[in-house]
């Protein structure tokens, strides 16, 4: 199916698919996190996305800002740790950027994601190469923007973003962590994928699955 816009139904399906993916990969995320963090990333993401899907299902939203902000607040209040404020801020800022609309074109959705990432950066103070979720999301958004600017439809943009996120995720393996609990390990944090970059890649996997299925 080729589509040129992302509807609220797409967003809801995207969140549901993200929940499925973090649930499937819960023990993998936890394993990555026990290597360099505190072994709770899988459980935290599953708890948060369960709460999100329940919340979104309970009261269907009529506008993108309302929907995305409610997702953000639910993550902030249910996840805790570092992932709660970071993923929560991503969706809260996406909501602010999206505004009270029922659908977003590729450029508007990209702008919303970019606003979300800017919020994550403001909150977490991460830069490229710090071995964080930024290292997956930033290249994914660059790829999304380039695809949309080149006239690609949503499915092609999502698939380009996913490929870039995967590459960004894989690039975190040799890096020394400079943020979060992993940074206490210094050189011992190399040789492991970053759990946050890995779960963020699932966000783009979920998006690609949603808009191409």
């Amino acid at each position, binding site marked *: 199916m080729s589509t040129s816009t992302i509807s609220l139904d797409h967003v809801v399906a995207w969140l549901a698919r993200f929940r499925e993916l973090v649930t499937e990969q819960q023990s993998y995320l936890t394993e990555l996190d026990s290597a360099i963090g*505190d*072994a*709770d990333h899988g459980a*935290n993401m599953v708890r948060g996305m369960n709460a999100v899907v329940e919340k979104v299902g309970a009261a269907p939203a009529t506008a993108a800002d309302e929907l995305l902000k409610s997702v953000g607040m639910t993550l*902030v*209040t*249910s*996840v*805790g*740790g*570092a992932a*709660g*404020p*970071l993923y*929560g*801020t991503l969706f809260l800022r996406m909501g602010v950027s999206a505004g009270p609309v029922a659908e977003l074109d590729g450029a508007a959705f990209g702008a919303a994601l970019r606003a979300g990432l800017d919020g994550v950066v403001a*909150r*977490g103070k991460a830069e490229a190469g710090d071995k964080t979720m930024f290292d997956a999301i930033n290249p994914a958004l660059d790829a999304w923007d380039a695809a949309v600017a080149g006239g690609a439809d949503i499915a092609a943009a999502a698939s380009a973003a996913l490929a870039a996120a995967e590459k960004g995720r894989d690039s975190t393996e040799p890096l*020394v962590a*400079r*943020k*979060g*609990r992993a*940074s*206490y*390990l*210094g050189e*011992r944090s190399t040789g492991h994928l970053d759990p946050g970059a890995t779960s963020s890649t699932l966000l783009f996997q979920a998006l690609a699955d949603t808009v191409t299925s």
Partner: protein
Amino acid sequence: MKKLINTPESVLADALAGIDAAHPELKVDHVNRVIYRAEPTRAGKVALISGGGSGHEPLHGGFVGFGMLDAACAGEVFTSPTPDQMQEATKVADSGAGVLHIVKNYTGDVMNFEMAAEMAEAETGVKVASIVVNDDVAVQDSLFTAGRRGVGLTVLLEKIVGAAAEEGQDLAAVTALAHRVNDSGRSMGMALTSCTVPAAGKPTFDLPDDMMEIGVGIHGEPGRHREKLADAASIAKQLVDPILSDMDFTGSPAIVMMNGMGGTPQIELYIMYNEVAKLLEAAGVQVVRNLVGDYITSLDMAGCSVTILKADEEMLKLWDAPVNTAGLRWGV
């Protein structure tokens, strides 16, 4: 895992119920998981709120009461509480004079408290200031890490700043004092054994019987290095030396805390205190006050930490002021 629990899932709720049952002078909000003083904050008094993951008791709930905190937000074991809990505590504890958030420097705690402060200010206009405590010298390269962790100094800071707030100092003064205390103290810890998080069911890290971890964090984070177990005098030196090489503690009175990590008996803490006191005397540090006991723990970890605070006259006076909490009580 051998623990005095009902189920791993109910540890926090059951512990909060116990605090509620044991302390009529406290008020426990079981929904938001906040411990308050039973009496509302006196009008004009700055409210002090702290919080963090559970498993460090008596920190923070045990320090709610006259002369210390007004409220403490409890997260799951070793997991930061969420901004809605902190926002609720901020709203309830504020008397109109503003609120100081006392935050230990961990990425999750810092971000959740930041969000809570923004949300509380946006919603109710309450003035929120914050202090991020970062005293653990075990984390060396702070430019390329999340920075020094917040550990033992948090206890001394909550006592001293709590007394200032009780005295009626305003939010700006209380906050400035909190920064001064944070800038004047350092800590270093060690572990003989790992802790076991109830939900995990097994020790957080493996430490062979004949080894110890020097520079361990209060969540079982790795320290500076591991080595063969040694006698108390050598361990004391390994804790005191990095603190003294990080900051000059001579020429001013000092408050010293010998803190147990939860699984170490008091008799060993006194042996360690004695060794630490001898080293400090030899180094020309004048210790005028001390605490020996379990004040900021890491569940059942065996081990200890040393905190040294270079105290000025005002800090000492505030240290001596009356305090009446479950975890610290004198002068009342």
